[in-house]
């Protein structure tokens, strides 16, 4: 079977909206409900965040949601249980995004097997070093049909971007600015220059832009330079205020097509 991520980019008729949300937030049993509402609202790709106690790459909004999820009792064991019917209810690509330590403690082989079993398509583990992926985990990810998505930033050198492109599948996560999640909220000339530089490199993977995408304006602007964009903190903020199905669908609509 073709990976759903490839399918999404291949079938793409419009800019792809990828939405990040924290598993087990705002309530422990919300994970599947939020995923279903996001797809119904028009999201194209989902990133399910694995909560961690020490999320150094995240800003206060996502950290607060992680802390809440952990207080709610979220664990990887619990999450895979919640996702056991994922593929009878959600058809768009689903990635897991999280820090490496909880995955290592769960057991990386067991983790990959479980991801395949419930129908996860890819992984984003920002603190997994490239060399370790290459030396230890790549065959494992491949065996379980999991795509590995790496991040690039405005400071990432061209040589490193090429290497990342080689080792990535599905798409490359283009971090819009040198920042933690949720820190900035518009797109500057320097960023445009960086997007253009990466786009001119002839990479094999499509790109999605994340960090600082919070509304229709930033989403559509980002999509001028990539195949899609990722919304995280802004959606978590929405969930913290109103997490009803209706509010989730309205949020997705407000990002993609407010008129």
């Amino acid at each position, binding site marked *: 079977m073709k990976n759903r991520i490839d399918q999404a980019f291949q079938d793409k008729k419009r800019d792809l909206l990828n939405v990040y949300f924290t598993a087990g937030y705002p309530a422990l049993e919300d994970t599947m409900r939020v995923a279903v509402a996001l797809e119904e609202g028009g999201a194209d790709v989902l990133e399910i965040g694995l909560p961690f106690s020490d999320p150094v790459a995240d800003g206060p909004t996502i950290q607060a949601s992680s802390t809440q999820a952990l207080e709610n009792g979220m664990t990887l064991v619990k999450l895979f249980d919640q996702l056991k019917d994922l593929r009878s209810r959600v058809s768009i690509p689903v990635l897991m995004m999280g820090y490496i330590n909880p995955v290592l*403690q769960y057991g990386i082989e067991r983790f990959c097997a479980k991801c395949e079993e419930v129908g996860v398509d890819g992984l984003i583990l920002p603190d997994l070093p490239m060399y370790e992926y290459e030396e230890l985990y790549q065959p494992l990810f491949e065996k379980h049909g999991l795509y590995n998505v790496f991040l690039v930033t405005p400071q990432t050198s061209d040589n490193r971007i090429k290497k990342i492109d080689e080792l990535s599948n599905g798409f490359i996560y283009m971090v819009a600015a040198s920042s933690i999640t949720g820190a900035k909220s518009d797109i500057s000339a320097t960023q445009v220059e960086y997007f253009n530089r990466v786009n001119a490199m002839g990479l094999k993977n499509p790109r999605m832009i994340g960090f600082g995408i919070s509304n229709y304006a930033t989403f559509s602007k980002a999509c001028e330079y990539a195949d899609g964009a990722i919304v995280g903190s802004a959606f978590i903020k929405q969930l913290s205020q109103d997490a009803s199905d209706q509010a989730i669908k309205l949020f997705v609509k407000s990002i993609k097509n407010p008129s």
Partner: protein
Amino acid sequence: MTDTSSKYLVDERGYFGKFGGAYIPEMLYPNVEELRENYLKIINEHGFKERFDQLLKDYVGRPTPLYHAARLSEKYGAKIYLKREDLCHTGAHKVNNTIGQILVAEALGKKKIIAETGAGQHGVATATVCALMGLECIVYMGEVDMARQKPNVERMKILGAEVRPATSGSKTLKDATNEAMRHWINNPADTHYIIGSVVGPHPYPDMVARFQSVISEEIKHQLLEKEGKSDPDYVFACVGGGSNAAGAYYHFLGHENVKLIATEAAGLGNHSGKSAATTALGREGVLHGSRTILMQTDDGQVVEPYSISAGLDYPGIGPFHAHLFDSGRALFESITDEQAMTAGVLLSKLEGIIPAVESSHALAALENFQFKSDDIVVVNLSGRGDKDLETYIKWGKY
């Protein structure tokens, strides 16, 4: 005698045995990579070494004395020496590292300095060298630690630093470290992050250990002068992240006849749920950019540690020490609040030296050993107790 130190020092990939590495998000990669590419070149330059040594001598007050503690020796039936890091400028060994790193920052052309701090000693040592070099300084400190180490907060402010409270998680050292890393992510170009211990992604553990290695280098020379041999039988040091221990062990690592004793803070006891004894309670994982041993739940969430000593209140140990533990090169002991405070008061009464509560953990472990009368024992007295007066007063048993 063969020197086996290469077994214990960092390899070319940035690992100590299976521990270490650089487990960092891409946003931190350029900063850490810039440092990794340059740190050895910078610190091996002749001019660097000269300036570093000069500042350690004239500004820090090195070499610190190796003091034969006669009354303490009599009590434990061995020849006990105290390495007086408590006499360093700013009151602890921390300044050895901040002097080294501020010179590295300067060589890299950085204009701003950030740091994390637990007890405040590293924050003070960082604020001090920033004042010395005229660089802007921001120190992240857990809100809880700010309350229990108020004098150090004020010291940093007097020195011209800005102290920013870390309000997430347990509001202690690990959270201050998270906040400092975030700040670095947001300000990659002009800022150097002075990590205060042998923790963090490669090259930090190795770089900090090298700067602190002046401690064991001096011990060697001083012992040779006093005892006619440079190797002691034992070196005792406390381990939070582990920078003073790394410095005190460094030049003895390859001399397997020197027994290395690492003491961790067991708080109210390792089975009380209130402890910071990482090797007793933790297991392998990834924290703050390195593969090491850390205290965590079955699900891989980092556990909030506890110790009476803010400087040992950290849920991990540096990869340097994880490897010493794993390989059996160092012996790890758990010391409770009670044992440490008792040892601190004992040293005060016997030798007229009030030690930092951190260092008291190393002193307390002397109780657990049967020494031979001619054993030469070095205890690294990493800091002085001035900052802990309130803790001693609250403890009250003196």
